[in-house]
């Protein structure tokens, strides 16, 4: 059969992110996919050469808006590890609360976009309506809706008042109910199943071989989540990674849906156990040595390699984001799919090209 090359992206009706795929098709079946990147590369890692290691907290927050809190937390944990800084317990719990709120709004954003990718506009609006409540919580507690900018080296720079905590808990009851109301629509609807079940299958073995991360990995039945490392206050909270075994778009969707509810539970646990006390500690000196820091972002593991030499600027800051890890898996999911399934399969890894092209 004659082969045809079809360009997909960087601008596409269902793609919020500028990734380009060169798709080779026979009839309407994909036989090969090759990515092209570089549309929004900013070279943020190299700013470590120009900015003070403390200023880099604000720089890494701009790697990606959607998971800015986790980038800053991961970087701060790395520097704190290098400088042997003991973060106050209250700050650790506050980091968990804001990072799980971030996971919730990211997953709700994705659930809406995913619904949009198969044409379910009203479901898209419902998920984004719920997301607004999380953004309101973030705005009320940090002053910003997306880039909350709460992390500093040595802790956090905002605290939660008892009134804010009470209000947050009451809002989360409503959020939880609204999410659960959408569950049957998302998972029992005939058209949703038709567009997502058995699409873009990735086996657990292949996912591990390709270095896949996050819900894309857990949707293939692999129980790997950086939160089990117990960073921040997670070692004091009850947590088991969510997994689904089929490895298709439906499984990846279900993992994210359940993780949104799980994040609500983690916020509640953190609020129930948060101790009183300081929210940051004074940090003196400069970092020296090399360290790895890892955190579970909404899209998967983010990996920071930091090398410092006792000066105010770092020798090297290297960031491996989860989408970067999931692109090879995407390239193996696409062959054999119909051309019309490409948007759904691409969206199923929750691509963030802003992260990928730091």
């Amino acid at each position, binding site marked *: 059969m004659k082969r045809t090359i079809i360009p997909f992206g960087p601008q596409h009706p269902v793609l919020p992110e500028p990734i380009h795929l060169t798709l080779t098709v026979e009839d309407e079946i994909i036989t090969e996919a090759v990515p092209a990147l*570089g549309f929004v590369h900013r070279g943020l890692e190299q700013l470590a*050469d120009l900015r003070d290691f403390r200023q880099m907290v604000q720089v890494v927050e701009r790697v990606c808006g959607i998971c800015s809190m986790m980038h800053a937390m991961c970087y701060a944990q790395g520097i704190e590890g290098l400088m042997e800084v003991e973060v106050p317990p209250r700050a650790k719990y506050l980091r968990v609360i804001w990072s799980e709120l971030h996971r919730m709004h990211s997953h709700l954003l994705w659930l809406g976009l995913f619904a949009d990718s198969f044409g379910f506009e009203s479901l898209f609006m419902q998920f984004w309506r719920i997301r607004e409540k999380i953004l309101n919580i973030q705005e009320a507690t940090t002053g910003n809706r997306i880039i909350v900018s709460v992390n500093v080296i040595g802790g956090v720079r905002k605290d939660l008042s008892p009134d804010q905590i009470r209000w947050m808990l009451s809002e989360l009851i409503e959020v939880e109910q609204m999410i659960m109301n959408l569950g049957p629509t998302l998972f029992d609807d005939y058209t949703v199943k038709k567009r997502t079940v058995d699409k873009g299958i990735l086996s657990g073995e292949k996912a591990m071989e*390709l*270095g896949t991360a996050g819900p894309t990995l857990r949707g293939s039945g692999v129980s790997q989540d950086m939160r089990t490392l117990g960073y921040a206050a997670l070692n004091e909270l009850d947590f088991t990674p969510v997994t689904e075994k089929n490895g298709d778009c439906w499984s990846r969707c279900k993992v994210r849906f359940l993780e949104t509810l799980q994040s609500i539970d983690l916020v509640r646990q953190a609020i129930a156990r948060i101790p009183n006390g300081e929210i940051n500690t004074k940090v003196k000196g400069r970092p020296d040595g090399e*360290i790895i820091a890892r955190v579970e972002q909404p899209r998967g593991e983010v*990996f920071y*390699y930091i090398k410092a030499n006792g000066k105010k600027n770092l020798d090297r800051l290297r960031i*491996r984001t989860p989408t970067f*890890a999931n692109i090879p898996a995407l390239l193996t999911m696409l062959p054999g799919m119909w051309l019309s399934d490409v948007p759904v399969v691409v969206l199923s890894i929750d691509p963030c090209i802003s992260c990928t092209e730091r």
Partner: protein
Amino acid sequence: MLEEVIPVTPEILSGETAKIKYEGYKFITLSCVEMDANNVEILYHFDRDLQLKHFRLAVPKKTIIPSISPIYMAAFLVENEIQDLFAIRFSGLVIDFNRTLYLEDEIKNTPFCKYTVVESDSREISSPPDFDE
């Protein structure tokens, strides 16, 4: 402060990588660090059950390093990134963007190096492999 670091040379890199894959390690990424005007250090990061292992490869900038992408396919993206940003060359890449993953064809310098190396050769993307295997 890195957990387990194994020094490697270009000659033994592929063999050690194949061995670590056989032991069940998952590929994470590579970190390239410019040491001085003529040398770089590349760290290869792997994970098994959340325990990290690293290879440390210290080489002159002009060394052509064997790609580990035939062993860990996922490495092709980061190896291409290092080619773009540091002009370190890898041989045997499963997809070689030839320094055009991020960069435009006319860019000849090395954006992430303090000491720029200018390349003058023309660049073309090599043919992609069969991902179905």
